[in-house]
């Protein structure tokens, strides 16, 4: 019988897979960023579960840092999306081929 935090680790693994699939298959930057949020959330779940499993607080502190990094990522990423949409009128990754010549 699995304990609660072990179950949490498995759920976080499954969520990470789903998020990874989202990043790989979607071609819209907005959806890719939303999928990255799923990845970060899955990592958070793993951190909190590990914190409970090892009976220490480190996991929860690191989870807080992950959240701060996610906030930065969202701020910069969304600013980039707005900027891109203004110049290209599209946020599909396939339309962003300027560097390929």
């Amino acid at each position, binding site marked *: 019988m699995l304990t609660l935090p072990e179950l949490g680790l498995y759920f976080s693994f499954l969520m990470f897979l789903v998020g990874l699939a*989202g990043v790989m298959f979607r071609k819209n930057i907005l959806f890719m960023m939303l999928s990255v949020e799923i990845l970060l959330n899955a990592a958070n779940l793993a951190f909190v579960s590990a914190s409970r499993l090892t009976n220490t607080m480190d996991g929860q502190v690191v989870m807080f840092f992950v959240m701060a990094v996610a906030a930065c990522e969202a701020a910069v990423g969304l600013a980039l999306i707005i900027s891109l949409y203004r110049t290209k009128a599209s946020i599909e990754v396939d339309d962003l081929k300027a560097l390929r010549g």
Partner: protein
Amino acid sequence: MNLVMLSFIVMGVAAVLLSGVMITRRWPVSAAMVLISVMTLLAGMFGLLDAHFAAVSQIIVYAGAIMVVFVFVIMLLNLPPEELRYGGVTVGEMILSAAGVAVALVLGTKVGQGYLSVGIEELGILKSENSLALHRPLFGPDQNVKNVAATMFVEYLWAFELISFLIIAAMIGSVVIAKKRSAENANAA
């Protein structure tokens, strides 16, 4: 199988399924809303894991701030629904990612579980000379906020300060990126 375990499993399954739903949405707003419900479910799971502060900050920071920015941008751009196209991923990429998943699985189940079940005491971290580490607070449902703070502001103080620099940099960066276009347009006009 007690009530806590049961609700944890229900929430976990729902969170995984809803993230699957999220990545197949056509409307960005629907996807954002589904993601918010995933985050709320995760907050509930954190609560069941006795991490009350993590649960509350998950809702305040993630669902209440980061996702509001997402929704704001989605509404600002007012994007049309996107056609789903599952092309564009080659067989090689599929194989590589499958290999990555396999590696992650092995690491997660064998090495990670081994490390985690050994516990931090047996790895000798607690026996180090560091006097701060001797007073490191342990996990407990009571005083959760206090314990998080005691760990964050003693052991992880430098990480905390560096994160604050990162946030300031991101803030300035996003303002610069989002503003630049309109300034250039104004010059051109």
